[in-house]
């Protein structure tokens, strides 16, 4: 490329974005899946828009000025923490662990141009998330307040700059971490930080929300940390919504200034990181001290389960679902006092709550059970195993994880809600049922649409692929919820309500049994027909 730095950066950026779009298009072999995912995303965007619009209108009608002034910062903070998780992985995958880096770095292009192009690619991908999650919130907020026309321009401009600041900061942290810790280890640590920090932060702050008292028009959310870009965006939206043009332009100017400082600074650090040399290999060999002894001899099914469980234990980025699930339990326990007046807490309601946790927790282990084999799938496919043996091993391996987590979660919920032993046992049983069904759906889906060419095992990077098994799980939960509700209405006074719980569980067990039979037959057929 015999071009100047700017032209070279522009050419590289265009090419990288074009390749990414092509890769996304070619990644979707199933048109049905694509349509379902697109519809689900549209529904999500419309729900955020509608929810914000009507929510803000309600707050305006209730003259809740304190809440109106503080919700924006918290909404952007939710996104910031989601991005914390996404951006670490993205910075790793787009830059350090990207398969095109060995090719691009030996080409006669300036490393600075390459880093800038990769950075813009990352920001563009983040802009998609902003368009889906934050744009409908901003538009709903401004529309509900009947904000002036300039407020839309100012806020959308700020919104476009927002992910650039975040991505610059987070990719800099990622690259600095990689210079200190070997990449294969660093990526695992960063994933755990990306999952655990937001979870802990939310639990802490939700505990503060949960105990605020008073009239709605005097209520206000706690002040979000002012040093976070999410708070700057919150101030921009609040002032623009209130028609305060000097304040809004001031915040936009500040965000633009920080973008102009943070991005070049971050990119300089990242480019320096690559200038010092680059390798995907680990710096040193990691010795697994616990596995120096002779492994025991196992049956083929037990060996596959042991292999899968070992893989999960050694891949912290696969713990994301479990961290999120346990975090959700914390959220439920902290929020217990807030929810009770709105919806009376019954065993059935707690069963639905733990059912949702089970579905959430089972997503990743179920729908990656086969795909996690990656390029090593040849080994299972050439070993003398029947498709049924592979299915059993995969189901048990996935269930071992989610069964353990949901059991702990159900006990925590039962104890936290001060339920009796019987009610807690019902929660555990229901959690195990829902987890089993969600795992079955996930494994069946994965045998039908396996993906062996991923670069990162975390399902979050599979994007909308996870929507199908998740929707299946939610539908199943809704059906079981209906059974629980009907039996509660019919038998609430029999044996102090225990008969309703037992009969509800019985019906749910029948549903899960049917799901197991249907999905296992399908999964075994898919495995027999699998070509790799």
């Amino acid at each position, binding site marked *: 490329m015999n071009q100047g730095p700017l032209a070279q950066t522009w050419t590289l950026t265009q090419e990288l974005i074009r390749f990414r779009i092509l890769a996304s298009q070619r990644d979707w072999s199933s048109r049905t899946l694509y349509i379902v995912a697109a519809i689900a995303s549209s529904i999500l965007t419309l729900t955020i828009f509608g929810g914000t619009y009507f929510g803000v209108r309600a707050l305006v009608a209730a003259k809740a000025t304190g809440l109106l002034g503080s919700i924006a910062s918290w909404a952007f903070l939710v996104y910031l923490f989601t991005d914390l998780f996404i951006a670490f992985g993205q910075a790793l995958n787009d830059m350090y662990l990207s398969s095109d880096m060995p090719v691009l770095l030996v080409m006669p292009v300036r490393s600075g141009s390459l880093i800038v192009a990769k950075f813009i690619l990352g920001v563009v991908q983040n802009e998609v998330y902003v368009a889906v999650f934050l744009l409908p919130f901003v538009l709903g907020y401004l529309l509900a307040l009947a904000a002036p026309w300039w407020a839309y321009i100012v806020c959308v401009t700020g919104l476009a700059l927002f992910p650039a600041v975040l991505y610059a900061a987070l990719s800099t942290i990622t690259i600095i971490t990689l210079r200190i810790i070997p990449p294969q280890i660093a990526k695992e640590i960063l994933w755990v930080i990306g999952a655990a920090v937001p979870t802990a932060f939310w639990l802490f702050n939700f505990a503060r929300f949960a105990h605020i008292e008073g009239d709605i028009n005097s209520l206000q959310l706690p002040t979000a940390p002012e040093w976070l870009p999410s708070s700057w965006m919150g101030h921009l939206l609040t002032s623009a919504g209130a028609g305060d043009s000097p304040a809004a332009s001031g915040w936009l100017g500040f965000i633009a200034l920080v973008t102009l400082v943070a991005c070049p600074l971050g990119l300089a650090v990242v480019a320096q990181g690559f200038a010092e040399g680059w390798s995907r290999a680990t710096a040193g060999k*990691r010795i*697994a001290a616990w*596995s120096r002894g002779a492994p025991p*001899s196992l049956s083929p099914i037990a060996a596959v389960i042991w292999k899968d469980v070992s893989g999960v234990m050694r891949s912290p980025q696969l713990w994301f679902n479990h961290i999120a699930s346990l975090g959700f339990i914390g959220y439920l326990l902290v929020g217990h006092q807030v929810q009770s007046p709105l919806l009376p807490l019954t065993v059935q309601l707690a069963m639905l709550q733990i059912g949702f946790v089970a579905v959430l927790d089972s997503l990743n282990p179920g729908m990656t059970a086969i795909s996690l084999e*990656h390029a090593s799938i*040849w080994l299972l496919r*050439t*070993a003398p195993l029947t498709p049924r043996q592979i299915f059993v091993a995969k189901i048990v391996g996935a269930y071992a994880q989610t069964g353990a987590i949901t059991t702990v979660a159900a006990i925590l919920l039962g104890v936290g809600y001060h339920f009796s032993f019987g009610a807690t046992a019902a929660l555990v049983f229901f959690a195990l049922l829902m987890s089993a069904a969600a795992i079955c759906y996930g494994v069946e889906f994965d045998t039908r649409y396996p993906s062996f060419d991923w670069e990162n095992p975390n399902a979050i990077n599979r994007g909308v692929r996870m929507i199908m098994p998740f929707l299946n799980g939610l539908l199943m939960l809704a059906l079981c919820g209906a059974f629980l509700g009907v039996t509660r209405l019919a038998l609430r006074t029999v044996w102090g309500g225990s008969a309703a719980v037992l009969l509800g569980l019985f019906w749910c067990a029948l549903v899960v049994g049917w799901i197991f039979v249907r999905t296992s037959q399908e999964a075994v057929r898919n495995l027999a027909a699998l*070509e790799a």
Partner: protein
Amino acid sequence: MLAPPLVVVDHLTKRFGDTTAVDGISFAVAPGEIFGFLGPNGAGKTTTIKILTGLLRPTSGRAMIGGFDITTHPVEAKRLFGYVPDEPAVYPKLTALEFLSFVGDMYGMNAARKMARIRELLGLFELQADAGALLESYSHGMRQKVALCAALLHEPKIYFLDEPTVGLDPKSARMLKDIVRAVTRAGGAVMMSTHIMEIAESLCDRVAIIDHGRIAAMGTVPELRELRGRETLEEVFLHLTGGLEEQRIAEIFREPART
């Protein structure tokens, strides 16, 4: 009386949509034989080996391994062979010791035999010192050695080796040749694909040259040379698969015009 062949391929065809990757090929590999499978990139070598190992299903035709049809009796057939894929993908989060132990369990080996064999193979390929390291820290060549150990572990009679020498250092490549010879001396059969003509010429009892999914020629190396009137196997290969002529190569890499 001749022993029955260990591998029989009968009019095997594999299509991917409109593309025919393997087009009605037939051959057999007898006990004690090293059968070389040669061909340019995309000729159908790996697809054929993947069908023989059960990774792909044939569109038509049959593949028999030790008397078992790989499509109808896959488990019985799979017990009989060891396989080294073209890319040595192994589980990155297992150590070499754990990985080989896992493979041994897949084939139902008892603990004592399994561990003795693992120690033997790790020693042979000089991997003992790294046996406790996660495979994600291994180089390509080391992973290739681990994949070879996995194929040899349960002492099968039949081996399918897809480009087995890629990534191996000269010492290990030489060792592999010796192992292959030892296996066939003991009555086993080896089918291997390779791009290295010297290996095919020095090691293989018979070779098949495949091009565009069809077998262009098959026989012993001297037979092929004689039949095609060429001096080396490489010349036979290029003659059959349409290698670039010297003049054409010279045209492509001519000296750039001075401006």
